[in-house]
Structure formats: structure tokens, C-alpha cells
């Protein structure tokens, strides 16, 4: 895993931060971690974005890839399409589960937001999920 992180261009200091925060990362499945990185690349995240997301959210590589894809599916359903903007602005949104996103969308719709409004709100304030959650 350490070698994989180095190959992603992370510095020794970046890797230390990750290990300090998520010491279990060394035991994670490399195949899953790589799928998570490729998911970011698919959404146009460049190497710097990926470094930023992983160092800001060292738990990202530990999330089952299917959970991330499910989360993205819910966001795509409401018409959100620029995931690079969302993920780089709030890397912790990636730790949310599909059912949490579904709950958030339902909450917004119950408050008379259209799906377009919800997308605009998310772009405007990438932390809106945390605010609703608390």
C-alpha cells in the first residue's frame, strides 16, 4: 500500500499523515483502493486532486468501492454531473453512504427544492450534507 501511495505521487510527509490518521490503511485491499482512485480519475480528478482528496480524507481508500459507486448513483439521479468540484471541495462527502444521500435528497425535496435547486445548493455549499446531518 505504501508503494502504491508513493506511486500516486504522495510525499513521505503526506503518507505519514495518512498513516497517522488511518493506521489500518496498510492492511486494506489494494485492488479496492485502486478502484477508488480510478473512480476519481473517471470523474476528471487529476493527480493533484487525488493527492488532495487522499491526504484530506485518509479513510477514502478504505471504503468499499461499491459503496462509493452507490453514493454517486444517487447524486447522478438528481442530475449532478461535476463530481470533481464536489469531491475536491469536500473530500469527506465520499464517506457518506447511498442511504444517507437518499435521506438528504428526500429532506430537500420535502422542503420544496427541485432537483436542479439541490444540485445548485450542493455546488454552492459542498458541506451542506454535514449541516443537514447535524
Amino acid at each position: 500500500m505504501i508503494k502504491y501511495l508513493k506511486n500516486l505521487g504522495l510525499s513521505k510527509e503526506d503518507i505519514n499523515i495518512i498513516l497517522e490518521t488511518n493506521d489500518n490503511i496498510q492492511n486494506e485491499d489494494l485492488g479496492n483502493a485502486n478502484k477508488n482512485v480510478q473512480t476519481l480519475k473517471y470523474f476528471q480528478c487529476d493527480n493533484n486532486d487525488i493527492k488532495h482528496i487522499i491526504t484530506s480524507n485518509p479513510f477514502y481508500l478504505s471504503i468499499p468501492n461499491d459503496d462509493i459507486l452507490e453514493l454517486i448513483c444517487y447524486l447522478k439521479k438528481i442530475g449532478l454531473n461535476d463530481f470533481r468540484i464536489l469531491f475536491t471541495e469536500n473530500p469527506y462527502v465520499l464517506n457518506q453512504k447511498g442511504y444517507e444521500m437518499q435521506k438528504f435528497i428526500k429532506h430537500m425535496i420535502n422542503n420544496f427544492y427541485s432537483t436542479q435547486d439541490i444540485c445548485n445548493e450542493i455546488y454552492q455549499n459542498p458541506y451542506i450534507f454535514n449541516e443537514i446531518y447535524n
Partner: protein
Amino acid sequence: MEKINTTNTNTVEDLKQQAFIALQQTGFNQISIEKIQKSKNYTILVKRSPEMVYSRIPQNLKIFQELGYTQAQIIHIAQHTPSVLLYNKDNIQNVFQYFSQLGITQDDTIKITTAIPHFLNKKNTEIDTYIDNFISKGFTKQDVINILKRHPIGITNTSQSLQSKIDFLNTLGMTKENITNILVDEPVLLNLSNNFLSKKINFLVKQGVDVNSLLQAPSKASKIIILSTDKITEKILFLNKIGIDLSKKDNFDFLTQNITILHSKYNILKNVNKHKKKLTPEEINLIKGREIYTKYGITASEALANSPYTNNPNETKNSINIKEDIER
């Protein structure tokens, strides 16, 4: 997901065969099965009581399915903590029941135990110990439940590490209430070392941010501190360039906003004020809100499409491989 057959058999060899079939039916590949077999607890228990090990594997896989774990989640927790396949089913069910009594939904319990699989073997009193650790430091029970749901690993902080974090934030001049608020608002801070946080704070000071005031606004501070220094630098450079003074606390809102959106809104202002050499502070202030779109008759998507921050590099070979998964 395919349902697992758990027909009773008599011989150890039959049970073993049945356990492997159950693992394969759940989607475990050869490598992940070998990883489980090589794990410490598994090897010890197989020597001691093979019947128990082989009969619990299909039984627990079935329970996980019934509780609502997805196939990927089951594989993930078993890879992470192979012993989950050997836990007593009563303990697993008890954890779900106890979390339910605490007001935690089944979905949230799955999220929590996917992040911390060994929680599936905890007794109520052990879970209470984690909760009481936080309550003894001034958190409410609801605060702890929120932390557990948002960032499960945060709850595993020891009494000393939690106290050390509180002491550190206290040295920065934060009140007890603000410390609780910032940790509940962004529980990942519980897992960031004081050394790392200290470096981040010093970095913000060097960038001219009024950190003392920022820390008095926990919900804003938490969102900035978790970002990488590169991202913060990118934001600050842009905000400085357009004349936002970050030593003023009224301007902290700019720091928590999406830089791409800020930039796209700034472009709207520049385009409609071409004749002006410099925009007024009132005009600049417009980029904080959404009114700018209606004021100038431009949609957010149109503004975004013209932002230089929206890049579009070519898709890599590997990213195309997962395209089908994403588009399903």
C-alpha cells in the same frame, strides 16, 4: 445476491466444503479466501474447533445478508477483520439491537460496523465504555451518537487521546463548548494528530488568516482545517487576488465556499463590469450568494461551464474500465 444454502452436515470435511461454497457464493475470490485462512484467529480456531469454524462461516454470511449488508460490505468486513465470520451470532444480533435502542438505524449500524467490524463482537457494556469516555469529557449522548454515525472510527479514541485533543484545542484559546462543537461538527479531527493540526494552524496564520477568530466559529474552522494545504493555498491565493481580506472574520464564509463556484461568479462580475478597472467591495461581496445569477440572468451551470477551474483531462485507460460500473 445469491442466498446461501446452510443445510446441516455431519463430517468436518463436509462442513469445510460447505463453508468454502458459501464464501464463493457470496463473491469471495481465491485470494480473499486465502487471506481469511491465513489470519491468526482463523488458524488458531481451526486447530481447536474446526466444526465451530466451518459451521459459523455460512451461518454468519447468512446473518450478514439478512441484516442488510451488501455483498461488497460483507467481503470488506471479512477481509478487514476475518474473525467476523467466526463471531457468535447472538453477539452480532445483540449489537444491532443495542444500537437500535440508542436510536441508531439499521443502515447506520451497517455503516458503523463496516468501518469498525470488531464492534460486532462488543458487549453492551463495552460499547457504553466508548460512549461514557466522551460523556465524561462534556459531550452529550446525542453528540456521541452523531460522531459514531458520521465518523465511526472517531469513537475509538482512548480517554488519553481524547483528553490530549481537548487540551490541545484549549491551548488554542477555544472554549469548552467550541471544542465540543468542532469535534462533533467534523469528527475526523479526532483522528488527526495534534502535531498535524498544529502545522495546519501555523500555515493558516502564515497565510494571513485570523485564526483566533476562525476558531471561535467551529463550524467554519472545521471545514477549512480538514482541507489539504494545497487546496487552502489555492483558495487563499484566489481570494487575495480579488481583494478579500482574510484577517476579517466576516470574510471566513469565502473560505468555506466552493472555489470553482466563487471563480465562476467572479467571472460573471468581470464580464458585466468590463469598463471598470476595479470592482467595489459590494460587488465582490455578491459572489458569496446566489443572487448574482438572477441579478445578471445567468444560470449556475452556464457560469460553471466557463470556469477555468473546471478541467477536462482525457480519461485514463483504467478509468474507462470502471465506466460501466459507474453508469449502471
